[in-house]
């Protein structure tokens, strides 16, 4: 059992009439992993989560939990728990009753339920309002009740649909760390759906980027941020500059790409090198662009400073290239002088800092 991944999706597809919400999605979640499904709204991430829970039927493909196919199993027979964006607390039940609900449905002995509810109320620091109903609780308290209610049955996998999306901004950071802590302590797998890149990057062991019903890239947060596989991932990740152009020529391990603002050298991807004339795109992280290019910064481009944001530890510049496109640059505030708005300057980056994207897949 331990050698089987907690969760496997194999070629999973979901259609709503003529609309394909999830197309041929495959994914494995190892035991105890924290996986974030990241993507814009309508990309299929929530539908994927709902299929894992059993709340939507799978049209094609297979879902396995602990190695066992569960396609035909209704939600109440799956070893999962789910946290909803609105928390879905039962308005007519006290906190203690909500938390007991899962165990009651599993028909555990009354004495065991009493004991475990008391333990859980304590563990999630909600014992003080055990006798209150949800409408008297704050957002943060509701969130803890929903978590306690979901985890008391000790599910194999916890599915979370934008679980902090409805919380006050000031609360989110703390709740995020708390959830991460709980996940580490209990060692159960989390599948967390979000459209917020910061959530996905700071929490996920692995991040799954989705768009238009497909998975674009699966990897560690570092993989996603530093080596975006496709143009979509690069544009979705904040602080990344994307260039479109055509291949001029392949130079060994490198490719020279002609863009509207100049020609740049980028490392070739593994596998087939692109043919000259082929349309390609590549990206450079804002943190790797420098305003003091030296000899090693082969790729150089003239730009005018458009706006400066001071973010404490870093300064974020928005430059404009000759064709009016934006180029972002981030640098630590301790270093260098502040470039004034309107100042013209030469920017540069090293060859190995560019990432060539995989060609876009033709929509099926």
């Amino acid at each position, binding site marked *: 059992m331990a050698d089987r991944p907690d969760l496997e999706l194999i070629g999973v597809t979901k259609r709503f009439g003529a609309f394909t919400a999830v197309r041929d999605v495959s994914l494995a979640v190892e035991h105890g992993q924290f996986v974030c499904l990241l993507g814009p709204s309508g990309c299929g991430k929530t539908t994927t989560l709902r299929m894992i829970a059993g709340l939507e039927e799978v049209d094609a493909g297979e879902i396995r939990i602990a190695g066992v196919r569960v396609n035909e199993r209704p939600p109440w027979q799956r070893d999962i728990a789910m946290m909803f964006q609105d928390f879905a607390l039962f308005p007519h039940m006290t906190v203690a009753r909500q938390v007991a609900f899962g165990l009651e449905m599993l028909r555990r002995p009354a004495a065991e339920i009493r004991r475990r509810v008391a333990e859980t109320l304590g563990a999630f620091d909600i014992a003080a309002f055990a006798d209150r109903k949800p409408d008297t609780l704050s957002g943060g308290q509701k969130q803890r009740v929903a978590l306690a209610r*979901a985890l008391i049955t000790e599910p194999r996998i916890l599915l979370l649909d934008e679980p902090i999306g409805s919380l006050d901004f000031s609360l989110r950071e703390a709740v995020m760390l708390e959830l991460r802590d709980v996940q580490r302590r209990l060692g159960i797998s989390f599948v967390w759906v979000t459209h917020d890149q910061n959530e996905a990057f700071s929490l996920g062991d692995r991040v799954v980027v989705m768009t238009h019903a497909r998975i674009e890239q699966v990897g560690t947060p570092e993989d996603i941020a530093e080596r975006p596989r496709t143009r979509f991932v690069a544009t979705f990740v904040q602080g990344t500059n994307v260039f479109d152009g055509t291949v001029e020529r392949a130079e060994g391990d490198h490719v020279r790409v002609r863009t509207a603002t100049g020609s740049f050298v980028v490392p070739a991807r593994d596998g087939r090198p692109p043919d000259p004339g082929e349309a390609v795109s590549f990206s450079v992280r804002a943190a790797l662009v420098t305003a003091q290019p030296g000899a090693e910064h082969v790729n150089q481009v003239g730009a005018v400073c458009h706006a400066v944001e001071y973010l404490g530890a870093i300064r974020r510049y928005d430059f404009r290239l000759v064709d009016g496109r934006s180029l972002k640059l981030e640098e630590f505030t301790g270093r260098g002088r502040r470039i004034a708005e309107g100042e013209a300057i030469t920017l540069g980056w090293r060859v190995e800092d560019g990432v060539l994207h995989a060609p876009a897949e033709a929509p099926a």
Partner: protein
Amino acid sequence: MSPLRERAAVSYVLAAPGGLWMLVALVAPTLFIAWVSFWASRTFALSNALTLANYVKFFTRPAYVRVLGDTVEQAIVMMLITGVIGYAIAYFLVVHVRRPAFQLALFLLLVVPFWTSALIRTIAWIPFLGVNGVINQALLLLGIVDRPVEAFLFTRTGITLAQTSFYTLLATGPVVYTLRNIPRSLPEAAQCLHATPLRVFWRIVFPLTLPGVVIGQILVFLNVMADFATAQAIGGHKLAFLGNLVILLYESGQLTFAAVVGVLLMIAMLLGVAVLLKVVDIRRLGAP
């Protein structure tokens, strides 16, 4: 929270026209009827002596007490029947009919018959229930019975059938409203906590629709208690409820005794509503 402070003078001013109307049109006549019910003489005179004898007379005549019992029994039977059927219709409309257009069409089908007057609807039932009526012909045609059933017209069964068609909608509407207000995530969350559909219904959906059920039951209860037309048209003159008794007494000139029955009917209705409101606080309906 109302934008008006509770004790602000302006709120009294705003309530005054409606309050005055209620006072003149409802409270004063009701008090007047109650007063008449204690009159010692049958004739109209403002200086009548007051007595409890009229009430004693009512409760010492088994025929009258039986009418009271029949009325309450009929109300309870109707609450049970319309409660179950009304809930089933509401559940079907909200949960199983997903397309809004279809939902609206079905709801209109339920409502359209109520655009005709109550009198016509009641009379329309007679051709259905008679010995050669539609129901009997259908039963004969389907071979369910060998000879016409006489139990439909001029019987309690017939009245119950007709009242079911009149009052089921009253039990449906409020349930539709409360069912619609349940976020889809609640039953889903319960399912993910290992609740089977039946247990989702009894533990989550039904308790959350209880205010709607109770409001529907109040509407049905009040309507059945006050209904005299159905009993008159379909029950013939063999059957009577309290409402029929009031008319009978009024028409035969027994004003004080008609007032007694009217007061007792009112008390029974108030008691019934008070009991139903014990079940759930409808003022909280619509609160999050």
